[in-house]
């Protein structure tokens, strides 16, 4: 094929402007014009091979001019913006655009992987199942041969490669509401929009491409005496001006969900050379529409014939679009192959634009004279009752061989002719694009007259218009658009008065009158390799093979052959595949059925789905002391959504050196740590005490005012759920704290019992996590520190005993002080209103200066509690009970509580359950979290008997080595045993000794002191 740019003049290259644009493809520089798509610019430069096929690595060229493109997939951009599998037909050209072909090595023009073609038979339908499935091995049902071949196959298969570099762009999410959503802005969509907008309803109009108007943009017809394109531009401008209309171009409505909720993706900056960082790259629109008009048009389908994947074969309407809208001849000599009238129109339009149309081949013998006349108009040789038996040429079409076609039998006659051409524009009829309505469940219905599936009965409020609803042609489009708008208005209770509700005659149209129904011809079976699904390399023979092997349901056909499962989701191949299957099984297409479309309509960037929820775009939660932590040199660490200090490194210190120093200081002096991230719940009401008594496993009924208690919460199945302290502030008021990670789920858990299980209890719950800032003060000198700064209360051992709670004032800030210890040292938690958090921190640091106070981070916090044997997240893993963690004493036998009954299940009292122990490293090596505890050597480790959970280096004099909490089978009775902590992934096998998890101060003398 040798496409080239035509002489641009009025009506040729209507999409283009004079501005020249430089871009690169596979490292070579090319020039295109403003308004070009990447595909049209490549064609204009004579680039015919733009990619290689998925399985056989056959050369492939541009096949369509829209988002349904199966072949021309490219990788765009470099670095973090690199994006694979983008349809060149949809990419708007801009200065400096970088694109590369895919799935080829070393180059798209010379691809060594093309040897796969020689093994064609081996890669037929079900090849993988037949060759590689066998008795289970390594836990999979794969043969030895698979394990040998896997690495080669993985290298050879697949499309473009993504990037691991973070995406520099950001994405936005919009929540939009409207009365009527109109999808598509062709004649039908525009007409619906005009009618709906006139009524004053709030409407959103979405158009997939850059320019609204759909097929009107390339239409040779006249509307109200104006060229269709001009009429359309005026109509669109008028709509865009209206206050009740939101017109979104470059916006694909991807998904149709329940309750008339739609997801549309707007490509905001993809077409711009300069990416303004303040603007999101793409926006995800969640649109809730009361009703919708779906006017998504129809997709042309090909006729399948031998060699139909050669570069140069493309859909007729795409060829016409390249000639008329993009001023690009798709070839030097174009042959048109059709089974319907629209192929002839495409030929005439191309010829008018200056393309040489050498031949028109129509399988039908019965063609209207008015249509035949179009053939004369383009001075093409006309062959009705003939069909293409094959396309010749290796790296592009050089000629077609045509033969007499018997419409009754579908067989080819002996008589044949060869026609030289470098482009075949093929039209096999039109398939309505009802993907959206199929997504929401409407079952499509086969229309034998139109030879097309039409959308089924609506399950929600939507109305189809135009070609999507089988109403082909401009007159029908305008009429059905208005009808759909009126029905939608009626659905939302804004039906206009009877007089104005009449569908008008619509604008006057001058144009060709044709029949859109094609002859029921889907494939010319002449024996050669003919492709149904171009992207997944599924041939007509594969479909028949699947049938012969018993895969007769369309769902099985799809999965066995992978027909329609590529990134284009079979937009140009589904119906043809079905038709071939129906023919093979001697059934009507209507009885064969069709598969349901699933969202999204076209591939969507992960970033726009994730929006600002994940990764570097996610919102961060900061405590009131965040800025001070940074000033003091903290490394911040992401703990869920929170950013928390990991350690406060002195110059030259590593994280490990820092946390060891911080830990030692707390054990010997005093340190302070930000604990504001703990969940906090205010529990009030006359039944609050009883409520707490029911949700905690230990007793809470008798907790006196001014005291705190550590509590365990279980799930109903008896497993541990969360832990924390609850402070009784007043007779009927408590402050509950939860773990940082558990804050949200504990609140929901309590609300469930309050609202649903015990709605009669008089108890109110409120999350106050953000209202309080909290600082723990820990270490033997912590009381001195408090004495130096706390006023209006007694913090002596008598005034504030272990687990006591008092109100006080620090530097003018009202505080609550509870004597609690997570570290095992004498320690306090000091809470104040969140806005005073930073001031309180500074006051405590100042008061502690003479005691050499240090701030400490998460690592030291964790080290202190591991040494003490206090459990946290890694031990509360949803599979441990209080008994497993040595907390049986916290399980009350005097009451029933949430989880009490199922905790008594026999299995929970078995001695071989994983039980909490500690292990210490015997050989000086670090123990990694998640290491398996095994009895044997590295070579023969034996089975896993448990695993390590929380690990650290313990600087305490009694240990001075790497330690870890661990869950070990029957662990309580195994103290003193020697095992190994194995981490084969990191090549570690550490000799360890099992200890009691109470490693430091087991009798608790220090914290009670």
């Amino acid at each position, binding site marked *: 094929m040798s496409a080239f740019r035509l002489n641009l003049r009025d009506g040729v290259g209507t999409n283009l402007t004079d501005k020249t644009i430089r871009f690169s493809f596979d490292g070579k520089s090319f020039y295109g014009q403003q308004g070009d798509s990447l595909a049209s610019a490549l064609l204009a430069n004579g680039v015919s091979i733009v990619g290689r096929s998925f399985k056989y690595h056959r050369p492939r060229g541009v096949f369509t001019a829209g988002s349904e493109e199966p072949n021309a997939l490219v990788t765009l951009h470099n670095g973090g913006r690199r994006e694979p599998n983008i349809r060149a037909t949809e990419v708007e050209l801009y200065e400096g655009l970088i694109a590369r072909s895919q799935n080829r090595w070393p180059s798209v023009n010379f691809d060594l992987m093309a040897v796969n073609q020689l093994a064609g038979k081996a890669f037929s339908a079900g090849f993988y199942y037949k060759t590689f499935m066998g008795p289970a091995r390594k836990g999979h049902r794969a043969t030895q041969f698979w394990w040998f071949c896997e690495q080669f196959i993985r290298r050879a298969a697949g499309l473009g490669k993504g990037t691991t570099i973070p995406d520099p762009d950001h994405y936005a999410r919009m929540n939009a509401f409207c009365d009527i959503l109109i999808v598509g802005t062709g004649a039908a969509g525009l007409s619906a929009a005009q009618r709906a907008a006139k009524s004053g309803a709030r409407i959103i109009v979405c158009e997939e491409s850059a320019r609204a108007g759909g097929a009107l943009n390339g239409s040779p017809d006249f509307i109200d005496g104006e060229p269709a394109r001009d009429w359309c531009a005026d109509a669109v401008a008028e709509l865009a001006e209206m206050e009740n209309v939101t017109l979104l171009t470059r916006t694909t409505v991807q998904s149709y969900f*329940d*309750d008339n909720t739609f997801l549309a993706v707007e490509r905001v900056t993809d077409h711009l050379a300069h990416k303004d960082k303040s603007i999101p790259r793409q926006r995800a629109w969640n649109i809730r529409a009361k009703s919708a008009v779906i006017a998504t048009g129809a997709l042309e389908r090909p006729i399948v014939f031998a060699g139909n994947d050669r570069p140069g074969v493309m859909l007729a309407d795409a060829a016409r679009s390249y000639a008329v809208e993009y001023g690009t001849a798709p070839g030097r000599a174009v042959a048109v192959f059709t089974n319907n009238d629209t192929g002839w129109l495409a030929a005439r339009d191309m010829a008018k634009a200056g393309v040489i149309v050498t031949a028109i081949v129509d399988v039908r013998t019965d063609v209207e004279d008015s249509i035949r006349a179009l053939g004369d108009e383009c001075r093409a040789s006309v062959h009705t009752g003939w069909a293409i038996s094959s396309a010749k040429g290796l790296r592009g079409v050089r000629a077609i061989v045509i033969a007499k076609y018997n419409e009754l039998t579908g067989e080819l006659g002996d008589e044949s002719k060869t026609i030289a051409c470098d482009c075949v524009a093929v039209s096999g009829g039109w398939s309505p694009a009802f993907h959206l309505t199929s997504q929401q469940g409407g079952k499509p219905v086969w229309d034998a007259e139109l030879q097309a599936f039409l959308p089924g009965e609506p399950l929600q409020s939507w109305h189809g218009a135009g070609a999507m609803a089988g109403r082909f042609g401009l007159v029908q489009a305008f009429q059905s658009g208005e009808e759909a708008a009126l029905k939608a208005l009626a659905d939302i209770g804004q039906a206009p008065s009877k007089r104005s509700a009449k569908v008008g005659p619509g604008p006057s149209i001058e144009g060709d009158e044709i029949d859109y129904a094609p002859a029921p011809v889907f494939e010319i079976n002449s024996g050669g390799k003919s492709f149904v699904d171009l992207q997944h390399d599924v041939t007509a023979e594969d479909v028949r093979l699947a049938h012969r092997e018993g895969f007769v349901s369309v769902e099985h056909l799809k999965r066995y052959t992978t027909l329609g499962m590529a990134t284009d989701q079979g937009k140009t191949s589904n119906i043809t595949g079905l038709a071939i299957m129906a023919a093979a099984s001697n059934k009507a297409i209507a009885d064969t059925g069709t598969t349901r479309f699933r969202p999204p309509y076209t591939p969507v960037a992960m970033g726009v789905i994730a929006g600002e929820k994940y990764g570097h775009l996610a919102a961060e939660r900061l405590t009131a002391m965040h800025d001070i932590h940074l000033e003091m040199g903290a490394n911040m660490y992401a703990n869920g959504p929170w950013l928390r200090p990991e350690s406060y490194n002195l110059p030259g210190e590593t994280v490990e050196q820092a946390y060891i120093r911080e830990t030692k200081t707390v054990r010997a002096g005093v340190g302070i740590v930000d604990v504001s991230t703990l969940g906090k719940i205010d529990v009030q009401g006359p039944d609050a005490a009883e409520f707490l008594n029911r949700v905690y496993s230990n007793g809470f009924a008798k907790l006196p005012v001014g005291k705190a208690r550590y509590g365990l919460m279980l799930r109903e*199945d008896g497993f541990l759920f969360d832990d924390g302290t609850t402070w009784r502030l007043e007779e009927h008021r408590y402050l509950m704290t939860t773990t940082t990670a558990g804050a949200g789920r504990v609140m*929901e858990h309590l609300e469930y019992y*309050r*609202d*649903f299980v015990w*709605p009669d209890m008089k108890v109110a719950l409120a999350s106050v996590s953000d209202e309080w800032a909290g600082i723990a003060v820990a270490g033997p000198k912590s009381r001195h520190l408090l004495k130096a700064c706390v006023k209006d209360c007694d913090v002596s051992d008598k005034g504030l005993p272990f687990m006591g709670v008092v109100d006080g004032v620090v530097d003018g800030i009202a505080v609550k002080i509870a004597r609690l210890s997570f570290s095992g040292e004498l320690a306090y938690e000091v809470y104040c209103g969140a806005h005073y958090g930073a001031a309180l921190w500074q006051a405590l640091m100042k008061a502690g200066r003479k005691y050499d106070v240090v701030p400490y981070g998460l690592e030291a916090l964790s080290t202190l509690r591991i040494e003490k044997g206090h459990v946290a997240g890694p031990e509360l893993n949803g599979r441990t009970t209080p008994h497993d963690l040595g907390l049986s004493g916290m399980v009350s036998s005097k009451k029933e509580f949430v989880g009490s*009954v*199922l905790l008594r299940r026999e299995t929970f009292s078995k001695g071989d359950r994983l039980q909490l122990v500690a292990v210490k490293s015997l050989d000086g090596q670090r123990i990694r979290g998640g290491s398996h505890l095994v009895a044997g050597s590295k070579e023969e480790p034996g089975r896993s008997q448990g695993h390590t959970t929380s690990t650290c280096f313990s600087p305490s004099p009694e240990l001075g080595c790497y330690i870890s909490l661990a869950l070990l089978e029957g662990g309580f009775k195994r103290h003193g045993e020697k095992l190994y902590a194995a981490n084969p992934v990191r090549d570690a096998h550490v000799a360890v000794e099992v200890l009691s998890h109470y490693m430091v101060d087991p009798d608790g003398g220090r914290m009670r002191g």
Partner: protein
Amino acid sequence: MRLTCPYCGPRDHQEFTYRGDASATRPGLDNTSIDDHNAYIYDRANPDGLHRELWNHTSGCRTHVIVERNTVTHEVVSCQPVGPYAEQLK
């Protein structure tokens, strides 16, 4: 899917948290039968048609709603408030 919160009106389902089958009711505190608790925790019908579900409007007013929903057509038949203030909302 959209749910009608008795306080806030029709809202997107993303604002709600699914809390499970609303037909499962917890045995009373004095019921210590392991079988009854097992049934409450684990036994669930998988109805083809109407299903009663408990949802919490977690990103809104945090009221619980019992949603009656058709598992075949996805139609939401009703949204009823539960909890201490349910009567006042009806």
